[in-house]
């Protein structure tokens, strides 16, 4: 059977992608952040997953307000980088894994998670920045990727608990796949940040620290955090953290924290990077 070999939580700040794309990672603003990335890069290079499932949100790229799927699973052979309004990022086309993706689709929907099936879509910084953080600038991404897109742009997003349960269902689906693939799940977005209105620039390091501690040790309690607390305590865009709960749910009840790094600021965001393995 296929199996989960780890989980990664990773913010998906567009400015981080721009810093990599424009060769600015050594600049004084960026060097301290990118130094913190190195241990996570070493971990994923050593782990060498066969497939990554990347849980991310689209930012008005593949989906607009015309149709907003709460959960959408990418089934295609490949996913091109999106033009988000300023040209696509100069990163490799993302290769999919349609066979495992279709297995996930069948398993998850019959497990009562009603995903939207997507056969064609571009992927924006929400998915490609975490790949750049973890893999740098290769000519091709080192493994196939299955995009799992979660709506967090149009309120309300799915609850943290729903995301956690979806992660648990992903685990069941992966473990029922007849292949031998070793799978890493990335939960992306967050941590605390607010991009809009007069409270823009909001950062809450205490909330994020409690979130990370709880995500490792007591994920059911973190899954119970209601939206109003994210909005008040993590900033209006901090609610993206529900996507980390998909990743955590896909791992077993007990995990080992391999690596944690946080950094303020990357652009407007308290940046988080977390690597977990099965205990």
């Amino acid at each position: 059977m296929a199996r989960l070999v780890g989980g990664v939580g990773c913010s998906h700040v567009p400015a981080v992608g721009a810093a990599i794309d424009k060769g600015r990672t050594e600049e004084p603003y960026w060097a301290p952040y990118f130094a913190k990335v190195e241990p996570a890069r070493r971990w994923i290079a050593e782990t060498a997953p066969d497939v990554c499932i990347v849980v991310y949100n689209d930012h008005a790229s593949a989906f607009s307000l015309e149709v907003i799927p709460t959960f959408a699973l990418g089934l295609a052979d490949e996913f091109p980088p999106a033009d988000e309004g300023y040209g696509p990022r100069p990163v490799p086309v993302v290769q999919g894994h349609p066979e495992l993706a279709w297995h996930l689709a069948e398993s998850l929907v019959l497990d009562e998670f009603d995903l939207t099936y997507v056969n064609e879509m571009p992927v924006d910084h929400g998915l490609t920045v975490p790949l750049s953080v973890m893999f740098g600038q290769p000519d091709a991404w080192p493994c196939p990727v299955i995009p799992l897109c979660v709506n967090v742009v149009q309120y309300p997003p799915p609850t943290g608990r729903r995301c956690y349960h979806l992660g648990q269902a992903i685990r069941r689906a992966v473990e029922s796949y007849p292949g031998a693939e070793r799978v890493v799940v990335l939960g992306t977005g967050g941590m605390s940040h607010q991009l809009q209105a007069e409270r823009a620039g909001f950062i809450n390091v205490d909330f994020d620290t409690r979130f990370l501690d709880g995500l490792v040790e007591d994920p059911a309690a973190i899954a119970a955090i209601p939206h109003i607390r994210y909005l008040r305590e993590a900033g209006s865009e901090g609610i993206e953290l529900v996507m980390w709960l998909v990743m955590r749910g896909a791992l077993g009840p007990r995990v080992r924290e391999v690596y944690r790094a946080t950094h303020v600021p990357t652009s407007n965001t308290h940046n988080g990077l977390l690597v977990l393995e099965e205990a």
Partner: protein
Amino acid sequence: MSGPREYDDIPGTIVFDGRRARRGYPLNKFLMSLNRPENRDAFRADERAYLDRFPLDAEQRAAVLGRRWLRLLEVGGNVYYTYKLAACDGMTFQDLAGEHTGMSPEDFAEMMLSGGRHPDAGPAEGER
């Protein structure tokens, strides 16, 4: 769901819920169109003529033409959509976020470098 929401009292915060989405639908359609380079070129060439393609109300149209970034959110714009207009003007997301607060770009950048807006601090000016 109708009536006040439990998040309406969060200072300086506009949650993009169904109320905003309904008001902002044509505005966000316009903003979404800027994902295509040929549309960005057409908009830059003649902003008013390009906006005629979308059924914006007068307040939305004025907010676009005047680059009134906070106002764009108040009339139904979603910040990820309004960023497409800001990017068209060469702004970074930090430039856009800072514009909402009334702070200068330098002051906003400095606030972020010193750890961001503290949870106990209010928004930059007044309360929503």
